């Protein structure tokens, strides 16, 4: 069996007195598509930020490809799609794509960028700064930035929110292609249809794992529906 691309050992995250994650032990193997579910404030975003290296654990560890999350090696392997896109006001979308790709060592990025813009319906807006985009357009631009660079692990925080049906389909296909190509994908979501397309479901509530198993069980439907 392949080595896990993401592994957490006794992972703990606290904010002051509040425990956001309680001794989480979890492994994700390459090519798997994990749906991360749970009510608001359950610890989903905290888990993704810890894996991305944006937060540091209060206890335990997270490794990406055997490297501590946040290290240069881990950053090379991880693409993070945040719930709130952050982009420069003074760069066009095309310039963002070039910048992100080259920051990750990609020199031949143009074809990939053009393909992403086409699939997400952004080709006409490539020359515009994302500052003037609508919420959905900014989300699509953020998706393009996450996919324009190579990665072995994609961490996406509610990426389908705010997307029109065509863009949802496009993102779903991009995720499937990434997983098919051997990358692991962890998607935080509240949508049952997206959960059902995952290979596995991890449910967190009050910082603890309450379910870890197949995504198409009545238990999952209850957990997603009960939020």
């Amino acid at each position, binding site marked *: 069996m392949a080595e896990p691309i993401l592994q957490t050992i006794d992972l703990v995250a606290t904010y002051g007195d509040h425990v956001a994650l309680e001794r989480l032990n979890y492994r994700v193997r390459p090519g798997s598509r994990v749906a991360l579910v749970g009510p608001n404030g359950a610890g989903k975003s905290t888990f993704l930020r810890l894996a*991305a290296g944006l937060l*540091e654990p209060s206890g335990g560890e997270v490794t990406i490809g055997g490297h501590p999350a946040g290290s*240069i090696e881990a950053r090379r392997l991880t693409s993070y799609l945040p719930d709130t896109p*952050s982009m420069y006001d003074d760069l066009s979308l095309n310039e963002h794509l070039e910048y992100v790709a080259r920051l990750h*060592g990609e020199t031949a990025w143009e074809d990939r960028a053009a393909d992403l813009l086409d699939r997400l319906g952004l080709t006409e807006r490539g020359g515009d700064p994302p500052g003037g985009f609508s919420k959905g357009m900014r989300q699509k631009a953020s998706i393009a930035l996450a996919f324009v660079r190579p990665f072995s692990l994609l961490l996406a925080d509610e990426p389908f929110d705010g997307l029109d049906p065509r863009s949802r389909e496009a993102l779903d296909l991009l995720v499937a292609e990434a997983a098919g190509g051997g990358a692991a994908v962890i998607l935080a979501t509240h949508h049952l249809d997206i959960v059902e397309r995952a290979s596995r479901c991890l449910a967190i509530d009050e910082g603890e794992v309450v379910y870890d198993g197949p995504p198409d069980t009545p238990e999952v439907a209850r957990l997603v529906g009960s939020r």
Partner: protein
Amino acid sequence: MARVGIQALREMRRARRRRAYEEIDWIDAVYRVYVIALFSALGTSFVSGLVGGRPVTPTELSGALDFGPAVGGLVVAGAIAAGLRSGGRGGPLVLLPADVSIVLLAPISRAVALRGIAIRQLRFSGFLGTVVGMIAGNLAAQRLPGAYLPWVISGGVAGLITGLAYTGSALVACGLRAGRRLAGLIAAGVLGWSIADLLGRTATSPATFAGRVAMLPMHGLGTPVLALILLGLPLAGLGFVGGTSLEAARRQAGLAAQLRFAVTMQDVRTVILLRRQLSAEGPRRRPWLRVSGPARRGPVWRRDWQGVLRWPAPRIVRVLVLGAAAGVAASAAWEGTPVLVALAGLALLVAALDAVEGLAQEDDHPTMSGLLPHGSGWLTLRHLAVPMIVVMGVAVVGVAVGAALAPAGVAGVLGIGLVAAIPATVGAVIGAALSVRGGAAINPLEVGPFGSVLAVARIVGPPLLALIGVVPLAVARIAVDAHQPALAAAAPVAVGAVLVSLAVGAAVLLREA
């Protein structure tokens, strides 16, 4: 791969800089520089004229020689302590949110990615320190012996060292992840060392050496060279900057972007709220004391005390320090540098901005107050009572400090101080209430010349009221110089200042919405 990434980072930063330059309207920029330079020159000349006062007496000169470097050192130590506290909270780097999510998550060295931003920050704080130091040197040259230029230059150099030490210490603390507690302890140690130098009339702390740099025209070159030790702080900061916590940088980035916008709109209330968030200065869960007993004086009175009694310790310390600073400034004004009386008024205004929290909260949550069976004037008036008492207490701290510093003894100054404290308190509280009510000074919905007038009134009004509040002190000093009874001269002016503040407050604050 890393080389390609770093090259991309440099090229993109260059391109963004170039684009920013291209978007500058140079004629407009040159005009602005011209206007700022003109007003700065006029302001400096005006202030110099005000400072001119009388030359120092031999006793005062001896005091300046003995204590000047240590007092200057205390200012430098204060800057280092503030830097350490800022670094302990994750500052001082101000990043764009996109820098955090795009650049700092890329597989390139964070030290390389952050060093350019850190250098920019050092450059800015160094520049600001130099300007402030030169102004202080200019003020010193008016009264102390020595040529004008050496005072301005030595003040500028000391300011430069202070500015660099501030950001440098912040960079070291955040790069090494010192944390709030450790950074606070070191800050207390730095301040304690300088206080020990002040009390013992010694020069052992590097901060005191920096204070000596400011006094070069009187002390001459010697130990001040040791102040260069402090330049190790920015160098070390640049070395450690890669260790900056991403979590803190992300939090700072989001808040700093909002803060910049709030400053642009002159929105004092939002600036206060964001600054509190940046320094994680939330109310205490448990109040220092519980407000008990029946609410005889009404719900607003009780609610405001409940808020004050939940102030966190740093806010209490800050307000007390502002009171002490007002006392020091008033004392210096009394002893011959009249322009410093303005600083006393402004220090009380800043303290009052914290004291009017209950009133400001009504604007933050308008639905709650809008549903009350009373007009906004009724509510505003009741919200002013507690701030008046709090700021009066702060002013009394200032009076006590001023009296302790008075060479002629406590008794002579205490009466004047207490009479002057009343209008100063009223002016500061009403000024602060004007600042926090009504949102941003610059309101895009108020266009045309009338909108501009309103914006200027909102910006200038509060400090003007605070300054009117301290006029009685200046009048008392003039009376003393003219061998007139100070109290008799100050009292009617104090009454007038209170009436002016109340009239402005009634006209603006008590209007029914």
